[in-house]
């Protein structure tokens, strides 16, 4: 073995583990989900090996359609708010002196390193009926009755935006930073106002970042079931909670599997749309 290199052996040593790992823990589980989605649930909560498209048919039931509509609306609101808050913020950072930018970006990433349950728990302390914000407003005499903030749909939206904002800022920052300053100068020299320069030059050029930011907020928000449970109190059902329930409480695995595949389908369509506009690497 010594001295002589045997190129064949290292190939298997180096890529074998990855190949096997992805096969066993990614491919096979995903095939399991596809398989289960075509089976039938039995009354005791298990699965019968009987082919059926019942789960897919039930996706079109009115209740489920309503939940999906509500989920997409929430995700869309999340993505739009993240863009509205994140774009100006990324713009401010990208226009700072180069030496400072690193630190400002670091401070955006820092909260992301701390577990989100801990951070969302902080929000619940703030928003409660007897919580920090209500106490403060009552003491200052601004309100006479505590505001109902926690366990509302608005709180869920707040939690989603809070959780996903850094994912919007980073791609936005990357594309704003790449802007060619000479183009902006050209626009100014040609007499364009600031607003016009932004609408006609800056914004179109940063579209890849806008798309990446929308995807990175929209897609994950569909699955963050624990945020609607912690902030919304779990009273309003979203697709994430619905999937979770099929596997844990309702024990209708085929339906849960069909819903999951529906979610993958949506993701793939969005990613496909995205690759038409930008490059996948811009996502990072």
């Amino acid at each position, binding site marked *: 073995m010594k001295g002589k*290199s*045997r190129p064949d*052996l290292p*190939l298997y040593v*180096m*890529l074998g*583990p*990855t*190949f096997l*790992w*992805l096969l066993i*823990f*990614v*491919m096979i*589980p*995903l095939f*399991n*989900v596809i398989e289960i989605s075509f089976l039938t649930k039995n009354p005791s909560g298990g699965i019968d090996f009987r082919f059926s498209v019942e789960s897919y048919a039930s996706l079109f039931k009115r209740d489920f359609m309503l939940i999906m509509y509500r989920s997409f609306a929430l995700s869309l609101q999340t993505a739009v708010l993240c863009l509205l808050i994140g774009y*100006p*913020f990324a713009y*401010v950072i990208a226009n*700072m*002196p180069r030496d400072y930018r690193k630190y*400002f970006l*670091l401070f*955006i990433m820092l*909260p*992301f*390193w*701390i*577990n*989100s*349950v*801990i*951070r969302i*728990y*902080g929000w619940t*302390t*703030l928003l*409660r009926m*007897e919580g920090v914000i209500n106490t403060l407003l009552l003491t200052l005499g601004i309100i006479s009755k505590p505001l109902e903030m926690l366990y509302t749909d608005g709180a869920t939206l707040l939690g989603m935006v*809070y959780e996903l904002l*850094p994912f919007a800022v980073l791609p936005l920052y990357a594309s704003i930073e790449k802007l060619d300053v000479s183009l902006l100068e050209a626009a100014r020299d040609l007499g364009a106002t600031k607003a016009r320069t932004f609408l006609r030059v800056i914004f179109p050029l940063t579209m890849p970042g806008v798309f990446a930011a929308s995807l990175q907020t929209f*897609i*994950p928000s*569909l*699955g*963050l*079931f*624990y945020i609607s449970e912690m902030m919304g109190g779990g009273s309003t059902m979203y697709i*994430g909670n619905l*999937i*979770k329930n099929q*596997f844990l409480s309702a024990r209708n695995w085929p339906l849960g*599997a069909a819903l*999951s595949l529906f*979610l*993958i389908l949506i*993701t793939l369509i969005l990613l496909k749309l995205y690759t038409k506009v930008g490059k*996948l690497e811009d996502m990072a």
Partner: protein
Amino acid sequence: MNPEISIHNKKKIEFHPLSMLYACLVYLFLYLPIVIVIVFSFNTSKVNIKFQGFTTDWYFRMFDNSRLMESFYNTLLVAGASTVISIVIGTLCAVGLYRFEFKLKSLITNSLYIPIAIPEIVFGIALLVFFSSIHLKTGLLTLILSHVTFSMPFVAITVRSRIAGFDRSIEEAARDLGANEFRTFMRVTLPLIMPGVIAGGMLALTLSLDDVVISFFTSGPGSTTMPLYILGLVKKGVSPDVNALSTLVILGTIGIMVIAQVAQSRLEQNEGGNNSEN
């Protein structure tokens, strides 16, 4: 540097007070809940709603909460084990993809993006379904296996982007001088890609510590992680000992990440120095 660019930079340095105010508000939004968690760890009231008085008791009493401590221990164990495994497999994969041309190359490269692209919740239930189909009880083992699955691709991709630029002739030189494959890898390749490995490892560690959704489906009754433990308590009410441990976790995480950033930029600087000597 191009003189035109530096002129422009000078123009840009004018900090607009409004834009600074805006940036500060966004940071306030991001840090407010974290500060609140820390502040309430010093609260005398057991019901964690109003701040009544200052105490450091909870930092000692948290050790008596055996379920909290167990969940913390599980979190560290899962994060540690999955990070080490992810680093080993991911680094080997990245180096392998760099060195070899073979039939399945594009298949493996593309497959690395699957766990990243599919929604976490789907990934979580897919693993749950898989583990139950092979009759593997959910617990610490299934947690570690699933954490490796979502961390490893990130390590592989990070290390790979790092290798993309390095000079292959150094490896060949080592082999010509009589070093075998293993020795070449340990003594030549690994030191070169070290900044990438550290970055990838840190990413794996963060992802594991941060994960809620996938852990939710792949943990068992005796293997709750700290986030899952808090999630289960939030509606019933969380006592300040949880805040105390969370505060330590927050400070620990920030500490580790800052050290890692410094170490990484040191390594990169050293390398820059070596290159300029050449």
